[in-house]
């Protein structure tokens, strides 16, 4: 690679400095495009089915406002702390980066805990995945999101270990950046779940 190109690369943020990283990041954006299509399909399914409650409860009868609000708060905050982690990374501060990643991760775990609680609660009320088309689509949509968050938590743990082992390199920086994209994406999906599933369900 030419001298000029090298100098140009030096001006880029750490995560963009190698060709491989740039390919990976673009690839991940495109993957998120596919994820958009995936969640769009799940939302469409939910919207088609959510009034088809059979002999089971309706959305309005079922949803637990309090749990949902707590979940929302936890996840939105975690998106913010994830942003702070990237901010620290750009400033080259390892400790800040790891600290904020840990906070993010804990908030994510909190979100999952409340979500599981919420689900258990519904199941105790007799509202299971098998009860009605509405509940099938509800559990699968919200559960898919929850599964994504869980994967994100595991992934972040792997990256934190690698940061500790290898320090902040072009490669680890790229990994942090990509996992942060993923995390923000899940946050956006949650906002849609919150409005289209919970708010809509409680209004109608």
């Amino acid at each position, binding site marked *: 690679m030419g001298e000029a190109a090298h100098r140009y690369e030096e001006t880029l943020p750490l995560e963009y400095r190698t060709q491989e990283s740039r390919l990976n990041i673009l690839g991940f954006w*495109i993957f998120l*495009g596919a994820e958009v*299509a995936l969640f769009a399909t799940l939302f469409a*399914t939910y919207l*088609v*089915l959510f009034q088809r409650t059979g002999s089971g409860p309706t959305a309005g009868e079922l949803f637990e406002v309090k749990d949902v609000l707590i979940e929302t708060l936890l996840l939105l905050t975690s998106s913010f702390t994830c942003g702070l982690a990237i901010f620290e990374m750009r400033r080259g501060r390892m400790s800040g980066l790891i600290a904020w990643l840990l906070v993010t991760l804990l908030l994510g775990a909190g979100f999952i805990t409340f979500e599981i609680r919420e689900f258990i609660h519904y199941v105790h009320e007799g509202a299971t995945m*098998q009860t009605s*088309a509405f509940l099938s689509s509800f559990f*699968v949509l919200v559960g898919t999101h929850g599964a994504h968050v869980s994967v994100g938590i595991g992934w972040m743990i*792997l990256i934190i270990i690698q940061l500790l082992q290898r320090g902040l390199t072009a490669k680890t920086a790229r990994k942090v950046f990509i996992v942060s994209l993923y995390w923000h994406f899940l946050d956006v999906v949650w906002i849609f779940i919150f409005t289209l599933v919970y708010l809509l369900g409680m209004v109608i």
Partner: protein
Amino acid sequence: MKWSEFFVTGEPLIYAADVAIVLTMVGIVFVLTYFKKWKWLWNEWLTTVDHKKIGVMYIICAVLMLFRGGVDALLMRAQLTAPNMKFLDAQHYNEIFTTHGTIMILFMAMPFIIGLMNIVVPLQIGARDVAFPYLNALSFWLFFFGALLFNISFVIGGSPDAGWTAYFPLAGNEFSHGVGNNYYAVALQISGIGTLMTGINFLVTILKMRAPGMTLMRMPMFTWTILITCVLIIFAFPVLTVALALMTFDRLFDTQFFTMANGGMSMLWANLFWIWGHPEVYIVILPAFGIFSEVVSTFAGKRLFGYKAMVGSIVGIAFLSFIVWVHHFFTMGAGPAVNSAFSITTMAIAIPTGVKIFNWLFTLRKGKIRFTTAMLWSLAFIPNFVIGGVTGVMLAMAAADYQYHNSYFLIAHFHYVLIAGTVFACFAGLHYWYPKMFGHILNERLGKWTFWLFMIGFNICFFPMYFLGLMGMTRRMYTYSDGLGWTPLNVVATVGAVLMGIGFIVLCYNIYYSARYGERDMTGDPWNGRTLEWATASPPVHYNFPVTPVVEDLDAYWVMKKKYGGFHVKEEDLKPIHMPSNSGRPFWMSVAFFVAGFGLVFKWFALAIVGALFIVLGLILRSFEDDDGYYIPVDEIKRMERAARKGA
């Protein structure tokens, strides 16, 4: 599932298949051991990340699947030759048309196309590999084990029997008790994930890894079609992923998505299926258009006529392909307004398609047409596909479609587009790029025999079906009664099918014959080609290009030949080349997918969890991997280049 039902029994055909499978496996193990080839198999193939080898493996699988799907087809034709035939019983026939359709579209057409694109696209854009070679290997092995899982349903547990469209509630627990449709849901899911990753991989490759000077509007047409196809894959396949996941939930965990009770909605399945399904048919036809463009332009000795219009029309077709899905069920009673709207969007697809047809025709005009085998397939495509296309427009007219829908008229239509489009393209591409894969040319004489047998057989087989449809014969009937007047045309169709089968046998013989006696391609450019793949040796060295070529115009290699007499590499320009390392992980992770999938099919959840744990383990190992590939030193490159150019 009872143990006594684990192996499919009671049919001589199935026992024969059992024996054949066992014998083949024993044979393979014996040959590999006898010739001490296990290591070679592992190092050169199972762990490879080289796009060319992956492409070859895709094509080998596709040809095998063409054989399986073809045998299914011949069995069906045999059963339908005469009224009230007792050759296959109803259940067996239903399984066969289901596996035929699913295999032909997902495990034959798609992988054939993906194989060709693996081999050709990096070469055409002057790249050394794809953007994510490791992921590419994973894609292939997921496809492979998905296909394997689907195929073993024939002997273990029972095949799916609800059609390749798997409409509910027929494919649900209410009416389908065995594991057949579990196979469908899980196997398609596994290979579908592989396809999605291929789409992402090639999109990044084409966007980011083109040789300097190759702007988007200087890309070869085939690469353009792959670019658009990738976009289709990325937006369509997640829909399939979800649809299959919901199907799996319904079947394994008794959810109520598509059931008859508790609010389930079977029409939702039909919608989801076709929202993926219609783009899917364009996923297999757009690359075919690309192949025809390359072949026609090469053998007419002319630049592709109306390149910009060609690009514009594929973009248009791709866009429209997402807003036409309802034409697959006009008869569901969605109301005249909805049907009219989807009628019009569907018919609109004919406009960009027509533009393409005329541009191909005008590429021929003033050319100097060489009738090679690849060119014959491409030329035959034009009239045959037009027949498929115009009958497609007839089907698009909702009010008229009520009379064609689900009849043999529809069968004839989609075979005219899928065979004359995709399959002809696969054969054209196979003959055209064969030297790039194996270093020798497929025998032209045998190639032409295949062509005429298959092409004539195809018309004899499928043209009568338009009329059978108009006579009221519906698709998926395992038999029909006497006195309906359908017999003569059915006999004719079977004759045509046999001719196609013979054509396929000649092709297989050709592959064997050419490997032994075929003409070696020493030049790397046997057809006087126009695009960059012909600037490499045949077969290319594994890093493809010793130095990255510089592109000055469309048909980059043609320009090089005109201006500089070819693609010349000065030894002093050589630099060490970075290449990715092989990895066995894509292979064993896909095995884990297979195991997990098998567990799901039989609801053996412990097994499924074991498989899933290995998948997670693979992901973790990948995350921690610190292998950044290796460099090929300059001396090594010099040595390899001299060897390749001498014609090894």
